[in-house]
């Protein structure tokens, strides 16, 4: 077992984990944060995307021990404590950016990262930025619309 200390969703946690434990397993099985899902388990689909030290990663492709000393943010702390949704969550709801919803946690976390880096993306930049996230319902069109709408919401928020 290896001791790790991680700040997950704004809370400090310390745990002994098996070195082979994946970050996504740690989040789901040890911390009960099942908002982050396992899709393909081959690091292709991006459903398990979380932020590690401020950047999006596929948490099925990171060991929990690699997050030691780091900061992990998941879909579960994206909304405010009072339930106010994050602009990207609002946009996915407004634009029907989900069908079955399984890819949604990863899509949203990747979209948040994308907009952090590029607040005003073109449609092509959104499509490229989401290339590591697969939607088996093939609802890509509305997902892209959602991200573009979220960018607009962010702009409006910044101007408010």
């Amino acid at each position: 077992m290896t001791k790790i200390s991680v700040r997950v969703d704004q809370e400090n946690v310390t745990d002994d984990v098996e070195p082979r434990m994946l970050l996504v397993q740690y989040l789901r099985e040890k911390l009960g944060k099942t908002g982050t899902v396992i899709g393909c388990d081959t690091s292709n689909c991006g459903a398990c995307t979380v932020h590690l030290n401020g950047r999006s990663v596929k948490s099925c492709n990171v060991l929990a021990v690699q997050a030691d000393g780091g900061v992990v943010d998941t879909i579960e702390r994206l909304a405010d404590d009072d339930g106010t949704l994050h602009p990207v969550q609002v946009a996915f709801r407004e634009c029907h950016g989900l069908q079955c919803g399984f890819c949604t946690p990863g899509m949203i976390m990747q979209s948040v990262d994308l907009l952090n880096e590029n607040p005003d993306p073109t449609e092509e930049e959104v499509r490229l930025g989401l290339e590591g996230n697969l939607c088996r319902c093939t609802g890509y069109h509305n997902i892209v619309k959602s991200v573009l709408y979220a960018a607009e919401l962010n702009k409006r928020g910044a101007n408010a």
Partner: protein
Amino acid sequence: MIPARFDYVAPTSVEEALQALAEHGDEAKILAGGQSLLPVLRMRLNAPEWVIDLGKIDALRGIRDDGDAIVIGALTTHHDVMHDALVEEHALLIKKAATEVADAQVRHRGTFGGALAHADPAGDLGAPALALGAEFVIAGSGGTRTVGADDFFVDLFETAIGEDEILTEVRIPKHTGWGAHYAKFVRVAHQWPIVAVAATVKADGGTISEARVGLTNMGSTPLRARGVEEALAGATASEDGVREAAAKAADGTNPPSDLNGSAEYRRHLATVLTRRAVAAAAGG
């Protein structure tokens, strides 16, 4: 799937890492960003007894100017490489290729040195590193040695790095002002290339004075298309001039045949992508 059990150590210096390697050597695997290693471990294609995680060695991160070369620390992520001003100015080809590696999430974790040390013949960074004449700085118990790009790539997933050694940094000779393009052909997004061509060109007006061309997935290692380079030296950057030179792209290659395409298809693809990459690099 989860990896088989292994013991884990995370040294904080290259010296400590070398010590761990000396102890566990052939039973150990080195972990950098893990974007290639973790899938291998999860699929149980490899089950090392030890994993030596370099992630806590901060000295291996970062990019610096070293006179006639830029030096990229082995643990620098693809994301940091593609957004670095020195890379853009002096090794544009590296930036272009790093931008094409997998997807955003993988580029946030995957490392420049890790990808090169992994030496997947379909990896995106080998061909540009080879084309630019990169030098690989390798640390071992006896000190540090430097290996040129022509000697670094040995075979499929095999490099000149010894079992008791670690790649610490990569020196890229400056190619300031050279145009560059990485033409990658894939069937679906964020995949490995079926074939890709890395081209960088020094053009004065409409004439190409020098060109460097590297090929991805046209053999068991990245390859230099030297016939194309020779044909391009002094050629006009016209469509016909580039097409004629690009026709030599597959000379001397031994591409694989697989579900994505036959060797013959890849040879054809190499000529087409070379034409596109050189034309784009020359500003055409």
